């Protein structure tokens, strides 16, 4: 059985949870088994996870699961996996997953693939999972050699489709230990979708000339409903916050659309964005290396081009 940890984001099951279940179901199909979802703590709508492929939803309720603690969540998930006889455990490769994937693998002495971007396949007799390596400059086919396997799924790797109906929700008797960490503050900005989950991203580089000029990026992002990002020099100069930095030493992203304005396209930047489905590059230098990695290019002054593109998007959306 494939056991998927379905994470509720601020009390709701969103894309992060739906993606891992769709992935878990496809993995279960490869292995000829079922996909079950695991929910930690109370969140409404758990039965709806059946629509994405969960045959059953197991829920563990405990006051110890209220704030996130990697060690406590690890015990809860591994105990559930043992009780249910799961052979594959799937978690999202987001901030939660990055805290628990390694712990799950160590606790179960299981082979793990962190940041997978494709459904596992049986190849040459081995359970094989593909993941990006070298920050997206290559992909590795990883054979998992242990009976129990742990996979974390990179965001935006798999299209979410709805198929079945609601799934039964059953309580699972697991008593996780008390956490040793205490969350004293939890802040999430409202508004734009967080960068790693964003499907549309508008990004600015040194060509913007200064933080005071960012309105042209923000306006386009607002028109599209996109998230804003930036290149490393921009973050290093404190023109924009660090968490907006995409690239090899920033966030690696794979949105459907990445629009880069005033970014030349150094190899370190490309590494973090070249798995985007469609790349649009706007640069006044026709020789900017980024054009070689782009699907669409506009050679021109971004201070002219971006407002025109924003108007065109508004016109299209208004139709």
């Amino acid at each position, binding site marked *: 059985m494939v056991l998927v940890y379905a994470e509720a984001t601020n009390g709701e099951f969103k894309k992060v949870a739906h993606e891992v279940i769709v992935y878990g179901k496809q993995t279960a199909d490869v292995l000829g088994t079922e996909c079950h979802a695991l929910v930690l703590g109370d969140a409404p709508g758990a039965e709806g996870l059946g629509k994405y492929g969960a045959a059953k939803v197991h829920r563990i309720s405990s006051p110890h699961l209220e704030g996130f603690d*990697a*060690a406590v969540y690890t015990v809860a998930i591994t105990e559930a996996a043992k009780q249910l006889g799961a052979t594959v455990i799937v978690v999202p490769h987001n901030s939660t997953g990055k805290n628990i994937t*390694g*712990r799950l693998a160590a606790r179960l002495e299981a*082979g793990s693939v962190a940041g997978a971007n494709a459904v596992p396949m049986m190849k*040459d007799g081995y359970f094989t999972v593909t993941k990006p390596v070298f920050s997206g400059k290559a992909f590795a086919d990883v054979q998992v050699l242990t009976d129990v396997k742990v996979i974390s799924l990179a965001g935006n790797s798999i299209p979410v489709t709805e198929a079945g109906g609601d799934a039964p929700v059953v309580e699972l008797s697991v008593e996780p230990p008390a956490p040793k960490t205490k969350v004293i503050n939890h802040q999430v900005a409202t508004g734009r979708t967080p960068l790693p989950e964003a499907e549309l991203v508008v990004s600015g580089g040194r060509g913007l000339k200064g933080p005071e000029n960012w309105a042209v990026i923000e306006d386009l992002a607002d028109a599209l409903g996109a998230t804003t990002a930036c290149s490393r020099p921009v973050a290093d100069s404190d023109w924009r916050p660090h968490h907006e930095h995409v690239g090899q*030493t920033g966030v690696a992203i794979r949105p459907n*659309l990445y629009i880069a304005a005033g970014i030349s396209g150094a190899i370190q930047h490309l590494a973090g964005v070249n798995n985007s489905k469609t790349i649009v590059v706007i640069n006044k230098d026709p020789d900017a290396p980024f054009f070689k990695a782009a699907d669409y290019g506009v050679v021109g002054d971004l201070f002219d081009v971006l407002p025109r593109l924003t108007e065109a998007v508004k*016109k299209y959306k208004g139709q």
Partner: protein
Amino acid sequence: MKLLVCVSKTPETTTKIQLTSDGTEIDTTGVQYIMNPYDEWYALVRALELKEAAGGTVTILNVGPADNDPVIRKGLAIGADDAVRIDVTEEKDSLFTARQIAEFARGKDFDLILFGKETISYNGSEVGAMVAEFLDLPYVGDAIGLEVEGTQATVTRDIEGGDEVIEVQTPIALSAAKGMAEQRIPNMRGIMMAKRKPLEVVQAVDFPDTTRVASYQKPAEKGSVKLIEPDNMDELVRLLHEEAKVI
């Protein structure tokens, strides 16, 4: 305070990744290596800042072959007190590496075990969490802030669209991300002193492989870029909608 900073060796950030002709390995011809940036810029520098403020020692740990020694020496030049290399000559997976670190650290009373948030080679973000589990320590990944007062650590971690502040008693393990510290460039005195600092080599413990990379692929090459005139943004929007189907 006794601090352990675990560091990896990775290809330099501008490296173009090439594969061997059968695609089973990375072609390392001409590849220049560095200390993994997250390990060096954030984990190591923050450890040094804490030591400078409160006293203590900073030990660097690497799991790998003797070829890694120049990278380890750079860490000593930046300011670590001593270093340990667990001698492993073959490429091994995360769980093997974590097991080596855990067996070395067990019983040595480190207050903090620091990692970079991921390597820029395998991008797993796993080893720190694995070590924490093996040693039964609390772990905080993607930390962007770390303050320590006595045995009380206050850690700020990156979460999607925000951050979270956590209080925890040491000993703990954590991984450091951008925002934790600023990169330090070693000076000549540091480089000279590094040559005399101890670099101990210890034997690895046995641990079975749990994963193996069978082959690599390069991303599909993009076709040639389609250029759109700057005064025709309606056309770009049409292409994004009708051809690329992304809006």
